[in-house]
């Protein structure tokens, strides 16, 4: 691919992404937001992050990601629920998925 095209495409993606990121803080500072709306926004972020967790844990592209990854996330989630240290949650999730794959589970 032509380097110039690549730079332009990357630049457009960068500017667009920044616009998404910048709009929230600026608009929020410009208008007075009611406590109720504030609560809804915080909840929206939680819903988005939870959906991201589900999609990232279970799918790859348009398909099911296989069993190793969700199993790892599940182990991490149970540990987090039991208030295990964060480091243990992350390492256990990765190790579970890696070991399952080593054992031939997709």
């Amino acid at each position, binding site marked *: 691919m032509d380097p110039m095209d690549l730079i332009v495409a990357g630049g457009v993606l960068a500017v667009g992404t920044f616009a998404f990121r910048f709009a929230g803080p600026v608009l929020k500072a410009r208008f007075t937001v009611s406590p109720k709306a504030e609560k809804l926004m915080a909840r929206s972020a939680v819903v*988005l992050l939870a*959906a991201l967790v589900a999609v990232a844990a279970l799918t790859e592209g348009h398909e099911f990601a296989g069993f190793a990854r969700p199993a790892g996330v599940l182990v991490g989630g149970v540990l987090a629920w039991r208030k295990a240290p964060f480091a243990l949650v992350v390492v256990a999730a990765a190790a579970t998925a890696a070991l399952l794959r080593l054992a031939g589970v997709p």
Partner: protein
Amino acid sequence: MRSIWRTTTRVLGRDLLRDIGLVCLADTIVGISYGAIAVGSGFPIWAPMLLSVLVFAGASQFMFVGIIAAGGSPVAAVAAGLLANARHLPFGFAIGDVLGKKWSSRVVGSHLMIDESVAFALAQRDEERRRAAYWVCGIGLFVCWNVGVLAGAYAGTAISDTDAFGLDAAFPAVLLALVLPSLRDRAARLPVFFGVAVALATTPFLPAGLPVLLALVGVLAGVAAKEPAEREPEGVR
């Protein structure tokens, strides 16, 4: 610099700093694989670097590089990347306060907005900790991600398959651990349940990024259900 570090350590505490450090380490390895994959599929070394510094959003970078490497048009690659990053708009509304009032800090802080920094900020209860967690995580990830990408681009295909280390499971696990405390709040469960269901149900049919955005209908479902939100203590705030 030393005093800034000391203040940050005091506000965040060693445990939270260690948690953030761990996430930075994991993202460094993912960055290495991204750099290696990009260069391995024919991109010049500067291309993945440029995206990492200016776009700084892992999933959209992988998508952009993947689509162009597969022979797709730049327009398709940009559109897919933008769709994947549209969730930053509602993120900005949720955590806008932590960026401060100065324009310079709003500009820099906006660029550091990424799933992990948002999740770490939301997981803190008081204002000072929230702000510190956002900035430390954002700056730490920015540095580690870019260093990782540079290393990966030069090392070639040293680590091209992070799945072998289970790192693909680490990312959702990190977000899950950070979001769980918010789910202890009853009023949040219905919107989350609906949102997750909609996102998963639409993933097979819609372009990447859109299903996660559609999860926002879960918030509407929560409003429609008129949960007793006023009496419940909010988990997030």
